[in-house]
């Protein structure tokens, strides 16, 4: 396999962007972890009807499990990021895998509503944070340069994973029932995670390799040793004192409210305007597919140009784009919206690791990224309840659309107030001199 990759490098002149680097194995593993971790969350809608039929619970009480899971994931994210920094992403993700298995098996045996809240809401919520938060900083540590390229490829799995697993779950629910489906997906998912994590290495140094994009003249970065933990604590203290740290949590929150309203509300909105359920679902699928392009492109552009500009354009586009829904009445209107809005939406959330790298250099980003996902998770939870709440009160989705725009546009203004990304805000993370083996 490696020889084939080396042949590709030579054949297409990819020496600078070699595909025979272990960083790509890490990116592939991260993609699969993201798919498994996020898919059950995205597939929650498939679970509602079988539970209503089996137990007679109301959709509202079942939906509470989803809200609980979103909030638990958000609250556990800073801790997951810290654990990833302190004990390594691999160990944290292994703990997440154990919780994933426990949550899936418990959910499959659920008989009471409180068990659903415990299994899906709490256990699975913590599992998600342990799987999804540490993996992104770990990928970042494998890229000395070209982090945007690595992040972009990894983020594509955000779209593909749910699209794939929703179909698999729907088929399983139909053929073996919801309980067996959870057991099968739980066992298969856990087996897959254990297998791929066997090949996962927290840092290039753990694998005896150098990070992607390392030049001959670069000294290795400090990733272990007697003062690694205390240095990390000291640098994280600097990070907490920057405006960017707090504002990025804020921006992530605002952006997630903005798109969660649309992602949750687009199908009922379409149906309320006369679209069939399948046609309305197709609008959401179109958004997922089109957004793949900018999920990949935004971090690459952010690294080459300016992450502030890329994120501003994405947030502004996401905010302005939703106004198309105010006049959408036909199937064509909705599909035009799906294509136009998915472009900025795809780029909205994927440039954050690049932004963190620009501001805080190679300082381990687990804790910082975990705090940002706290904002994102609370934003997703809030955005998820807005469409239903607004429709119950007003009988239309107009106010939900306006609120989505307000949150996204507020996020774009907050981006303009961020510091210039050309200047790193804290000192360089220590390097180890090749010969002296001491910190510079």
């Amino acid at each position, binding site marked *: 396999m490696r020889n084939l990759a080396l042949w590709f490098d030579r054949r297409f002149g990819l020496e600078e962007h070699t595909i025979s680097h272990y960083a790509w194995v890490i990116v592939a593993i991260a993609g699969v972890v993201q798919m498994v971790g996020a898919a059950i969350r995205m597939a929650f809608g498939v679970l509602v009807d079988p539970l209503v039929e089996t137990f007679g619970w109301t959709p509202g009480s079942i939906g509470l499990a989803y809200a609980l899971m979103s909030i638990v994931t958000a609250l556990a994210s800073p801790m997951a990021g810290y654990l990833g920094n302190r004990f390594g992403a691999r160990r944290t993700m292994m703990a997440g895998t154990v919780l994933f298995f426990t949550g899936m098996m418990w959910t499959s045996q659920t008989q009471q509503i409180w068990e659903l809240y415990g299994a899906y809401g709490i256990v699975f919520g913590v599992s998600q944070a342990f799987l999804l938060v540490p993996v992104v900083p770990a990928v970042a540590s494998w890229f000395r340069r070209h982090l945007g390229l690595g992040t972009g490829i990894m983020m594509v799995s955000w779209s593909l994973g749910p699209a794939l697993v929703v179909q698999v779950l729907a088929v399983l629910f139909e053929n073996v029932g919801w309980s067996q489906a959870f057991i099968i997906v739980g066992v298969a998912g856990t087996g897959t995670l254990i297998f791929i994590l066997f090949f996962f290495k927290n840092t290039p140094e753990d694998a005896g390799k150098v990070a992607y994009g*390392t030049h001959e003249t670069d000294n290795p970065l400090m990733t272990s040793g007697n003062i690694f933990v205390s240095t990390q604590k000291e640098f994280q203290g600097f990070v907490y004192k920057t405006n960017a740290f707090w*504002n990025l949590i804020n921006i992530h929150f605002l952006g997630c409210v903005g798109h969660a309203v649309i992602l949750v509300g687009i199908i009922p909105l379409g149906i309320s305007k006369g679209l069939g359920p399948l046609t309305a679902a197709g609008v959401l699928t179109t958004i997922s597919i089109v957004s793949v392009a900018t999920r990949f492109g935004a971090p690459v552009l952010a690294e080459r140009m300016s992450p502030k500009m890329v994120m501003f354009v994405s947030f502004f586009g996401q905010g302005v784009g939703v106004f198309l829904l105010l006049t959408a009445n036909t199937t064509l209107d909705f599909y035009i919206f799906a294509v136009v809005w998915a472009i900025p939406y795809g780029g909205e959330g994927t440039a954050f690791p690049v932004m963190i790298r620009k501001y805080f250099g190679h300082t381990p980003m687990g804790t910082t990224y975990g705090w940002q996902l706290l904002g994102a998770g609370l934003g997703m939870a809030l955005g998820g309840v807005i469409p239903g709440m607004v429709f119950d009160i007003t009988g239309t989705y107009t106010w939900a659309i306006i609120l989505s725009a307000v949150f996204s546009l507020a996020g774009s203004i*907050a981006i303009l107030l961020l510091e210039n990304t050309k200047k790193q805000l804290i000192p360089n993370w220590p390097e180890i001199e090749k010969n002296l083996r001491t*910190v510079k």
Partner: protein
Amino acid sequence: MKSTVSNQVVEITPPNLDGFEIKRRPIMGFGLLMSSVFGTLAVLIYFGAWASSDRIENRALAAGIYEAQAENEWWEDGLVFACPLH
């Protein structure tokens, strides 16, 4: 691109930060975050109060009584009380 650093444990000294410190507090960043928190709470209270007053009005209409006479949930009263526009 081979690393010259082996996996052996190396004794390293603390980094020299040349007295680096951040004296200013992150007022702008923290302030923006808090603005969003309070703005979001305001939106939730406004829509919550709107929903509550609709529910109270519907119950009162159905029972043929004045709104003031209707028995309300604690959270309905709380939201209407908290919202200056309802």
